[in-house]
């Protein structure tokens, strides 16, 4: 079997290893349907590549180090990124690259091509699942084509494919990927047609935009839409958007351009042309024996079909299946720019306003019934903002990923997360707060009398001589950031102000300061090195992408602080409720959630349910020795674990301890300068624990299942941030004890 074949050879030899997309194209060409000039690379080329380079075993190791069941989708994304980097860093063996180069050069020369995935098994789920694998537009030159072939291969293990791994039957031993290389047809109008609408069996749907199809597919450009009656072929309806933009080929890839005014007033297709598109779809439906989802473009040579595949629904209609949502997080650059504008100029100012409005209405004066209403109203407000957070803020984090991809594709770094260094040093609110803390710690460190006075005041001495300068700083800090004693972690637990803060400052002052990684010069060099890879308009775009990623990175942290301020106001109301219920001698109040507190305030006979505690079997007991998570900050640290279960665990945090928590909240990161390492249950490179650890250069492991139950405060642990492993080396009660 040859590794690279033309469409006519695919048809005449009936080979099965070129994937569904190639087969369909070959069939269409055979029937005289105009399709682009195409070559197919068989999946044997993929197999030869991963076998001869040892990639198969490396992928296997990456995908089996942790159980999928224990992985969050962010970790799947990270795994996928690491695998993608393996493909980027591993060149094709010379004989393979030669076998592919000659026919590609002969056929395409220096013409622009599209490099698309063609997953094997024409009727398999893979053939009909749209958007799981990558395709690249406007690729030029043999080197670049071969590199993009590797990237298409890598996309067999994309985050989307990993999400649908069961439906796809994804298996390192058997899964393969074929590739379509086709001349780029520069149509001036493009679109998709469903020969039968997924929503109405009696109709067909056409969607069309000016320019290239990608703008429609990724949702950046709003299309015109026609509904066509299948029985009569008549247009039933035409919906026109306000047309403003189009996607056009750019130096390397595609870019969004403003639509000329004369076009914005005219639909991309006339009624006749819409009919021609519909007729073509019906022809393909007949040819392939079922309703088709067809991508097409209309250029000077008329209508060309880019691909056709059976219409099948993604298997995610089960309630609670959020995979479709995860996939919606993959946004284009232009889409993210729009989102940024909305977040910066609309959402964040509104959040701040909302928090201020609530802060101005202390609940103490309300009657019980009013307080119950207020709790419910605040809960609703908070829920609404949590929804906004998921729908707008989280997708915006994709800006970081998009930049990471561009950076890795261009620079091929050894560390797939090297790009994160270009994002650090943004003005995150939590870093600013930590700097303010350090300034006060310096005052204590330099003034033995002040230190003495603070210790005396902690012991309850009201006459302790605390300098005015320090008091002013302290008040200023509390005014800006709060006293940290009643943070917004939802624990609802508070210590008497400002003892907690003073205790923390004394602890900080007792040790040399931990510095943020000051590497401004490196950063400038890195930035120039990155930008120097681009020229002309591409350089401008590369700079914009970096800027977007930096904003995205900064917001990853800040959005939580703003949301935290709103949540804090809900908690204030709930606390007031609990206080009043406490006066009625109701016990177990800590267990009640906001709506239960509201209900209890209205019901004088309220009694909380008390759940019985589980009894353990104690002739044998299990202990974790080594836990596997994700490497999220390089380095190795040894130290005493401090497991954060409540606010008091934060307040008593000591210098040299390892921060172990379920989910680092930016509102808890004030202890990070005291920590030697960070361990978090949630996984992923972009979670707060990983980000803040990176800012301070601390070893960090994320995605450690059950971290807070398997590790106890006081355990001696080793954080291996290179391999993503936690070793519990010793326990205070000394069973299986090993000295560090």
């Amino acid at each position, binding site marked *: 079997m040859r590794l690279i074949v033309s469409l006519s050879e695919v048809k005449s030899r009936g080979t099965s290893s070129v994937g569904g997309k190639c087969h369909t194209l070959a069939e269409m060409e055979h029937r005289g349907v105009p399709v682009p000039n195409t070559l197919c690379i068989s999946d044997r080329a993929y197999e030869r590549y991963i076998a001869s380079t040892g990639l198969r075993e490396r992928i296997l*190791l990456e995908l089996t180090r942790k159980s999928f069941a224990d992985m969050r989708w962010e970790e799947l994304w990270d795994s996928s990124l690491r695998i993608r980097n393996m493909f980027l860093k591993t060149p094709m063996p010379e004989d393979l690259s030669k076998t592919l180069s000659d026919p590609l050069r002969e056929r395409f020369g220096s013409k622009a091509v599209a490099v698309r995935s063609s997953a094997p098994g024409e009727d398999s789920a893979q053939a009909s699942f749209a958007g799981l694998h990558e395709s690249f537009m406007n690729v030029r030159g043999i080197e670049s084509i071969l590199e993009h072939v590797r990237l298409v291969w890598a996309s067999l293990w994309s985050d989307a494919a990993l999400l649908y791994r069961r439906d796809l039957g994804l298996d390192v031993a058997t899964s393969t990927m074929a590739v379509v290389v086709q001349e780029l047809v520069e149509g001036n109008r493009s679109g998709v047609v469903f020969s039968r609408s997924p929503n109405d069996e009696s109709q067909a749907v056409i969607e069309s935009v000016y320019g290239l199809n990608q703008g429609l597919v990724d949702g950046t450009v709003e299309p015109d839409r026609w509904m066509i009656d299948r029985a009569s072929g008549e247009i039933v309806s035409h919906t026109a958007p306000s047309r403003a933009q189009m996607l056009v080929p750019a130096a390397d890839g595609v870019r969004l351009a403003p639509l000329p005014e004369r076009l914005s007033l005219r639909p991309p297709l006339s009624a006749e042309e819409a009919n021609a598109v519909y007729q073509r779809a019906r022809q393909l439906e007949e040819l392939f024996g079922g309703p088709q989802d067809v991508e097409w473009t209309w250029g000077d040579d008329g209508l060309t079909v880019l691909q056709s595949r059976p219409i099948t629904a993604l298997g995610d209609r089960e309630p609670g299946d959020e995979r479709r949502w995860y996939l919606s997080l993959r946004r284009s650059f232009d889409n993210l720019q729009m989102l940024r504008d909305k977040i910066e100029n609309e959402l964040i100012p509104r959040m701040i306003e909302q928090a201020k409005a609530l802060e101005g209405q202390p609940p103490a004066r309300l009657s019980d019934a009013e307080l119950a209403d207020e709790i419910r109203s605040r809960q609703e407000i908070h829920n609404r903002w949590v929804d906004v957070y998921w729908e707008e803020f989280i997708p915006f984090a994709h800006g970081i990923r998009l930049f990471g991809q561009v950076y890795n594709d261009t620079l091929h770094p050894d560390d797939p997360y090297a790009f994160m260094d270009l994002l650090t040093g943004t003005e995150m609110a939590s870093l600013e707060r930590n700097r303010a803390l350090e300034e006060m710690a310096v005052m204590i460190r330099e003034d033995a009398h002040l230190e003495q006075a603070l210790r005396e005041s902690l012991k309850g001495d009201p006459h302790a001589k605390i300098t005015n300068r320090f008091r002013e700083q302290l008040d200023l800090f509390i005014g800006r950031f709060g006293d940290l004693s009643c943070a917004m972690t939802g624990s609802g637990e508070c210590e008497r102000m400002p003892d907690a803060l003073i205790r923390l400052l004394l602890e900080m002052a007792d040790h040399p300061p931990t510095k943020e990684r000051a590497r401004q010069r490196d950063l400038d060099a890195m930035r120039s090195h990155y930008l120097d890879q681009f020229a002309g308009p591409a350089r401008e775009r590369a700079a914009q992408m970096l800027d977007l990623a930096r904003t995205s990175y900064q917001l990853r942290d800040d959005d939580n602080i703003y949301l935290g301020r709103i949540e804090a106001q809900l908690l204030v109301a709930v606390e007031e409720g609990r206080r009043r219920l406490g006066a009625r001698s109701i016990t177990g109040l800590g267990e009640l959630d906001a709506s239960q507190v509201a209900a209890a305030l209205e019901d004088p006979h309220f009694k909380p349910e008390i759940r019985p505690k589980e009894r*353990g*079997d104690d*002739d044998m*007991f*299990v*202990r974790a020795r080594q*836990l*596997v998570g994700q490497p999220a900050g390089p380095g190795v640290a040894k130290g005493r674990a401090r497991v954060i279960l409540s606010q008091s665990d934060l307040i008593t945090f000591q210098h040299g301890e390892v921060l172990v928590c379920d989910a680092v909240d930016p509102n808890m990161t004030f202890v990070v300068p005291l920590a030697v390492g960070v361990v978090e249950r949630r996984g992923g490179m972009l979670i707060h624990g990983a980000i803040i650890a990176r800012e301070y250069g601390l070893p960090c492991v994320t995605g450690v299942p059950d971290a807070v139950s398997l590790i106890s405060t006081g355990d001696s642990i080793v954080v291996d941030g290179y*391999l993503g492993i936690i070793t519990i080396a010793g326990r205070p009660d000394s069973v299986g004890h090993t000295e560090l």
Partner: protein
Amino acid sequence: MSDRETTSLALRELFARQRLAVLATREEDGQPYTNLMAFAVSDDLRSLLLVTGRATRKYANLSADPRVALLIDSRSHQASDIHDAMAVTVLGEALEVSGSAKERLLTSYVAKHPHLKDFASSPSCALFQVKVRSYYLVRRFQEVTELHVRQ
């Protein structure tokens, strides 16, 4: 299921499939020494059974120092072993069994290894019961869980 139950279950499943364990003993001068041994495990996972000839080096080692380590694993000699195979290290103390207890324990040993009946019942062989102190279970290359038995 609790961690303890899932861990015990994983151990039971492994022990049901595997017949052989690597036994480590210590020679008089401190030199470690290993052998491949047929083993059986008690239902409560608190002890393991081994049989050895009395003239062997391991018999001498066990008689002088009863502390042992055993390794039981599910490798299949493929590249995939590195992540698919499970390995259990057992730490404990091996004591020779005699009297009526021997007869009872021998029956359960032979139930697992019927073809070793003659060997195990031979007067020249000794039956050892390993009182387990801890199991160290390794999965997915680097995930390590300990199961400790209260003594």
